[in-house]
């Protein structure tokens, strides 16, 4: 079997046993990238030479019998919103096109300490705002199962590269479903940890009370391995929780006994595609056959999740993105042209006798801010800044932001009540399989509604996992989502692993991956 089809856990075993070298393995993934990434476009940057040098160094240390980290020699791809010291970190935005962070994100430092081979930075929706990766300022990523379709988003590059055998594992971030949704649409396993489980230090902020970094991989076992490296308390992020990190990889294969699985009745209503519903119900039947009890539950405020999210996330974004001012870092407009334009505008107004209007023109500093940001941000980012600024502006704060925070509490209460009756909640990740590129780009609201089943977990701060549970007749992956009470990642991983040991949906590959 081709190396790129092996699980990370298996590859690690072969590396440890000396059956393969990290250089050989890294070359195999780089080869797959070279052959197929021109079509998939999962990567914004591939660090070929650096990855090979790093792999060679790890191989050398292994030969010399020196101590090695947890992921020694395994390639990992990184979503391009995690700061990598001295290396471009663009967030798929023009405004950060030339930005080179002066420090590493904590998860990058952890991956380096674990001796992972960082193979490249993956494409995403600009500033993680979107569900299709079409909002990248640089390129559109295709779904490896059908190149005319979207891979999901915003971690579309991280999901697509794992689906296409270009990396065994990747790191993404999830603010409203941005790990789970692309994992579901690309047929890989992706986990959004509980808020606070993984340090956000060095993650370019979108909505700070919702953002969470997490792993994507081929199997639950591999996901457990990567989460174990990423998770843990970090004094540099005061919202990272000081709780011990369980040995996820040691327990992942233990099946859950007497599992109580909740099915949310509101998730099976209007809008859910028939093939998706059938696959999800079959997956639930698999759990039943493994001894789980299925309970019908209700999350009555779930239908307000998208509306709540599209107030809170833009509000936090408008505040977070105020830092892009063309002063400290990032794009700045051409000042000479700008000064000339202001002068021309002023003289036109003066000549027309419009002295008040001439006086009201933006001063050069404000004009510099506005123009730099207008040139640097894409349409979706502008839309969210505008929405957030509007919702937080005088007279609207109570009606929008404060109201949304109250509904957020109701959404969380629904979960607390549900988890009094069940151990996990199961359901679809998305209402449909991957849609066509371009299909929703002109309809922002339709694009927002793609997040229907995933946003509530972010609002409540709980963890969730997505993994393949079937395929449509057209050959597109269908995902199952499990959600758990706070800090029950171990339960999510064990439940996903139980399913993967009983089924083989996660072992299917698109045709571009050699047998």
């Amino acid at each position, binding site marked *: 079997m081709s190396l790129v089809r092996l699980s990370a856990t298996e590859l690690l075993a072969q590396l440890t046993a000396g059956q393969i070298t990290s250089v050989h393995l890294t070359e195999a993934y780089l080869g797959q990238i070279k052959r197929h990434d021109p079509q998939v476009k999962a990567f914004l940057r591939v660090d070929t030479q650096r990855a090979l040098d790093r792999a060679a160094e790890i191989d050398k240390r292994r030969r010399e019998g020196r101590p090695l980290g947890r992921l020694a020699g395994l390639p990992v791809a990184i979503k391009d919103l995690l700061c990598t010291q001295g290396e471009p970190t663009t967030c798929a935005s023009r405004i950060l096109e030339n930005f080179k962070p002066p420090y590493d994100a904590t998860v990058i430092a952890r991956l380096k300490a674990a001796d992972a081979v960082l193979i490249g930075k993956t494409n995403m929706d600009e500033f993680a705002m979107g569900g299709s990766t079409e909002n990248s300022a640089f390129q559109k990523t295709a779904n490896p199962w059908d190149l005319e379709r979207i891979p999901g988003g915003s971690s579309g590059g991280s999901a697509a590269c794992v689906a296409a055998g270009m990396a065994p594992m990747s790191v993404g971030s999830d603010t409203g479903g941005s790990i789970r949704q692309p994992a579901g649409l690309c047929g890989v396993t992706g986990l959004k940890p509980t808020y606070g489980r993984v340090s956000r230090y060095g993650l370019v902020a979108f909505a700070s009370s919702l953002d969470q970094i997490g792993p994507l991989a081929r199997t639950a076992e591999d996901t457990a391995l990567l989460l174990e490296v990423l998770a843990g308390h970090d004094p540099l992020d005061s919202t990272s929780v000081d709780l011990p990190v369980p040995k996820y990889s040691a327990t992942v294969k233990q099946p859950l006994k007497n599992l109580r699985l909740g099915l949310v009745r509101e998730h099976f209503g209007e809008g859910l595609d028939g093939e998706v519903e059938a696959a999800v119900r079959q997956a639930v039947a698999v759990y039943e056959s493994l001894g789980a009890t299925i309970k019908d539950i209700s999350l009555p405020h779930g239908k307000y999740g998208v509306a709540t999210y599209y107030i809170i996330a833009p509000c936090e974004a408008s505040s977070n993105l105020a830092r892009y001012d063309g002063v400290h870092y990032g794009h700045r407009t051409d000042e000479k042209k700008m000064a000339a334009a202001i002068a021309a505008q002023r003289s036109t107004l003066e000549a027309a006798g419009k002295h008040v209007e001439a006086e009201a023109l933006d001063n050069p500093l404000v004009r510099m801010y506005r123009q730099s940001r207008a040139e640097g941000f894409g349409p979706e980012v502008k839309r969210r800044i505008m929405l957030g600024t509007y919702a937080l502006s005088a007279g609207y704060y109570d009606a929008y932001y404060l109201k949304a925070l109250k509904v*957020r509490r109701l959404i969380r209460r629904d979960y607390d009540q549900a988890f009094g009756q069940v151990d996990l909640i199961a359901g679809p990740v998305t209402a449909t399989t991957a849609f066509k590129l371009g299909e929703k780009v002109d309809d922002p609201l339709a694009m927002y509604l793609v997040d229907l089943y995933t946003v509530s977990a972010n609002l409540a701060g709980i963890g969730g996992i997505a993994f393949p549970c079937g395929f449509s007749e057209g050959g597109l992956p269908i995902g199952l989502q499990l959600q758990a009470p706070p800090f029950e990642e171990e339960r999510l991983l064990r439940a996903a692993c139980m399913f993967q040991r009983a089924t083989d949906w996660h072992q299917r590959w698109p045709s571009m991956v050699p047998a």
Partner: protein
Amino acid sequence: MSLTREEVEKVSLLGRLQLTSAELDLMTAQMGQIVAYVESLAELNTADVEPMAHALDVSNVFASDELRPSLERAAALANAPHHDREFYLVPAVLGE
């Protein structure tokens, strides 16, 4: 409630974004549609609900009061579009 073009223009100043006339038209229509959608929250009675700004019930996380090295000035300025090795430079705000 629908938004007017004037309101959207005012918000674009508050949000420090320069929008073209065409962008203002499109933004007015799209924001109106999205705001109408999120207004569905108004149908919920939340009079006695405590707002939830954050998923974690942690507060007052203290750092120990000790000196640690911080970013060197050169590194802090390295990404600035315009600086004089000491300060960030911006267009003149007062007078010419």
